[in-house]
């Protein structure tokens, strides 16, 4: 019996909770399993055993593991993600400032990627088995077969260093510009909101190269899914009927076929997006992008527990949210979904 849609939604949300609990526990254990001693690191150069012990106490790391866990969970309940040892800021503040940078980059990369992958996928689906199909396959697979940091450095070398056409890879905004007043955290959007075209354009230019690097990587899953989904739909009965009824190829393709192929494409998009968010640490390093990925790597290397936990939790929540949204999109688009197995 199909339940009502709200029940389905609430059910999905409820299901996500044990997952989040699991994430909280695993995040804690993982960071505690890291062999480094942050106290030694942060006691700094020329620290003695006493000063390291001092730092350890002040960081609360001298308490037993269960005790630390309880403190950690209690803090979480009040929305306190702790303080990052390395930046000295509350982790929440760090995440709030670094996350939009990654989000902006990832979203923009996805948009670019979609712009290329969708047409390629549709094209390949309409001419399966031909050399066009093969070519599309080769192009997208090539994009995903190279390590992302390699493509990044290569692009910097060719387009910035040799040709000089790309803007300097020194971060989100050239130093000549001040960051726009914070509304969303997306520099392009915020600058436009503030009515500052020059800054928006500058932020946009800085986005190009890193977004292209990331986008190359996401071409494959999107194109392949588009192709597969389109093929599936195109071979179905109702399309054949539409063609037999004399509807133009174009109308069939875009009005009927593509719309029906959307569902799996959206699912893929969601998964690709959350994967990218965590994986763009490599791109951030190359382009000096102050995003959440590089934040996590720096924190991991110095065993900055709170920061790593905060990062992991944020990512997990985002991931769960995105999947939830996709579920909802599915439920909304496809009335057949809502089936309890």
């Amino acid at each position: 019996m199909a339940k009502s849609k709200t029940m389905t939604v609430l059910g999905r949300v409820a299901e996500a909770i044990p997952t989040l609990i699991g994430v909280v526990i695993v995040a804690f254990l993982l960071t505690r399993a890291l062999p480094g001693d942050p106290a030694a690191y942060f006691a700094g150069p020329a620290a003695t055993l006493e000063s390291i012990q001092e730092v350890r106490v002040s960081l609360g790391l001298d308490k037993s593991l269960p005790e630390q866990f309880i403190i950690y969970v209690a803090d979480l309940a009040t929305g306190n993600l702790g303080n990052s040892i390395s930046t000295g800021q509350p982790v929440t503040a760090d995440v709030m400032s670094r996350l939009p940078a990654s989000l902006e980059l990832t979203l923009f990369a996805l948009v670019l990627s979609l712009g290329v992958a969708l047409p390629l996928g549709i094209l390949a689906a309409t001419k399966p088995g031909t050399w066009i199909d093969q070519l599309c396959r080769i192009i997208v697979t090539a994009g995903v077969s190279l390590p992302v940091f390699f493509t990044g450095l290569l692009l910097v070398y060719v387009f910035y260093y040799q040709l000089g056409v790309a803007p300097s890879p020194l971060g989100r905004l050239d130093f000549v510009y001040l960051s726009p007043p914070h509304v969303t955290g997306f520099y392009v959007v915020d600058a436009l909101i503030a009515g500052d075209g020059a800054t928006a354009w500058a932020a946009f230019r800085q986005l190009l190269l890193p977004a292209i690097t990331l986008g190359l990587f996401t071409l494959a899953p999107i194109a392949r899914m588009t192709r597969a989904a389109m093929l599936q739909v195109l071979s179905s009965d109702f399309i054949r009927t539409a063609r037999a009824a004399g509807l133009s190829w174009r109308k069939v393709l875009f009005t009927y076929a593509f719309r029906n192929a959307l569902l799996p494409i959206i699912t893929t998009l969601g998964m690709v997006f959350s994967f990218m968010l965590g994986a763009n640490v490599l791109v951030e390093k190359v382009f000096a992008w102050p995003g959440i990925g590089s934040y996590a790597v720096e924190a991991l290397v110095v065993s900055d527990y709170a920061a790593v936990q905060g990062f992991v939790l944020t990512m997990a929540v985002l991931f769960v949210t995105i999947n939830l949204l996709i579920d909802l999109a599915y439920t909304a688009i496809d009335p057949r979904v809502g089936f309890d197995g």
Partner: protein
Amino acid sequence: MNKPSQTTDMIKPVSGEDGISLADLNAAVTRQSGAAAPTRANMLRHLAYILKSNPMTLIAFILFALMLVAALLGPLITPYDPLKSSVADALQAPSLAHWFGTDDLGRDVFSRVLMATRLDLAIAFSAVAISFVFGSIIGSLSGYYGGWLDKVTGRIIDTIMAFPLFVLAMGIVAALGNSVENIVYATAIVNLPFYARMARAEVNVRRDAGFVQAARLSGNGDIRILATQIFPNALPPMMVQISLNLGWAILNAAGLSFIGLGVSPPTPEWGIMVAEGARYIVSGEWWLALFPGAVLMLAVFTFNMLGDGLRDLVDPRQRS
């Protein structure tokens, strides 16, 4: 909830009531066409057909064979000792003497790339094998028995998947230490959920199918049915994913090397060679990163193409 390996074109389930959504079922049912195993002659004929109509797949097979040969024979046929340094010859451009040039310690890049084939393929195969075996077992059991086993494993799998893949892999390697084994384990853990989910869906769909009930009636035990009747039908789509995952496993190792958590020097491994070689791009010594990078790309490419080919071979409805 589900996450793909790098490339997937399966219609992937979203979290449903039972963890199985209609899309899930759709996909599984579509593949159920293999209830009766095709004969060997049919398979070979089909294979020939696929190869003829898909030159890329043929090329992929050939490349794969070449890689296997390189992995097996590689270390024996290298022109130079991949580990021996020769400071006087450092950073030489590709030439007749050194086809891929030399690195910062004067070692022959071609020899190192060749030798690395064995290690990289080993990492990829073992990581994927582990995640496949354990993932299938866990997934099949949950899909067959359902109940609390299913719920618990489902949540555990979801938890693993909720972690940003790369950070999870990083964290595991950082926690367990910097060694080849740990890279393999980290990659395996990170890939496991995918196989578990797939096995679960496939088994769940066929759990009450006709042929299963027949087997049960004739007195076969559950595990036997699972192993001999149900699971083989789930194999084909999983084969496809295996080949795609192989490529991803190599890229994962490369990424870990870039941030310093890779294989220990002086062992050559494609990823670490690209990571270290990347530093030399701007100063003009392009060969240090390009050749290992190109070979790495070729390997991942081959696996991806193989995956496509396998899919075509296995599922007529989904072929190009």
